[in-house]
């Protein structure tokens, strides 16, 4: 295990990039900068010891194929933002929390426990085998941005269109 310390300048640099990417993608980081920088330090530590930025708030296996769902941003971020206003770590938060109008509350773990966890490629295979036999049996609904036509398959439309920045209410169910 490589335990070389993560320097403050590394953290600051990674934070700036993360923040820029978040804003450009229509996401908000937690307004508590020190809290976020601690999480960034954890991400960099995980990158150092595992070779990928595993979620700092979950136990990574060290095998990337088993951890793909928790490489930050994780598979669960957007569903947790939708249901709880924050991702599991509270690195990403919704607008109400970002603006200081609401506090972060603990987010329950959405990732299946160890015993029920196949790896991501197994899950993908299951998904393909399960369907789709027709468009109505797709595993996720498809949403369309009425402004720019961007399509995405997920439980809910994104808060902001990553292409044209239109708000969630400009999306319609497409399939």
């Amino acid at each position: 295990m490589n335990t070389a310390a993560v320097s403050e300048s590394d953290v600051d640099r990674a934070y700036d990039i993360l923040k820029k990417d978040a804003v450009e993608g229509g996401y908000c980081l937690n307004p508590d900068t020190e809290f976020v920088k601690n999480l960034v330090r954890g991400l960099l530590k995980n990158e150092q010891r595992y070779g990928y930025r595993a979620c700092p708030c979950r136990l990574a296996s060290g095998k990337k194929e088993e951890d793909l769902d928790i490489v930050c941003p994780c598979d669960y971020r957007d569903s947790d933002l939708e249901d709880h206003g924050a991702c599991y770590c509270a690195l990403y938060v919704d607008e109400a929390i970002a603006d200081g109008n609401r506090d972060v509350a603990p987010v329950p773990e959405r990732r299946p426990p160890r015993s029920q966890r196949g790896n991501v490629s197994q899950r993908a295979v299951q998904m393909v085998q399960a369907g789709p036999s027709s468009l109505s049996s797709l595993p996720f609904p498809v949403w369309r941005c009425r402004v720019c036509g961007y399509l995405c398959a997920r439980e809910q439309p994104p808060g902001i269109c990553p292409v044209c920045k239109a708000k969630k209410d400009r999306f319609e169910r497409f399939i």
Partner: protein
Amino acid sequence: MVAEHVDGKNMGPVVLYALSTCGWCAKTKDLLRELGVAFDYIFVDLLDGPEQNEAMDRVEKFNPSGSFPTLVIDNRKSIVGFREKEIREAFGT
């Protein structure tokens, strides 16, 4: 299993299962220090294979989702996540 001990008022066995990189685990540890409770903490991510598995078995016994932080009080009660109010209440503050 290597646990770090923090001195304080003896309230029976108090064990915090945490990750060294997790923001909520750090907040939970700070809160326990603030409350002045004697406790042990284990950074599960820093344990090697067999010890880590053993620690996870124990965490899952109290918290089937196996998430962090898991605070185990008196070998029976557990508080999952940084639930400040519940933690304060558990130690009568």
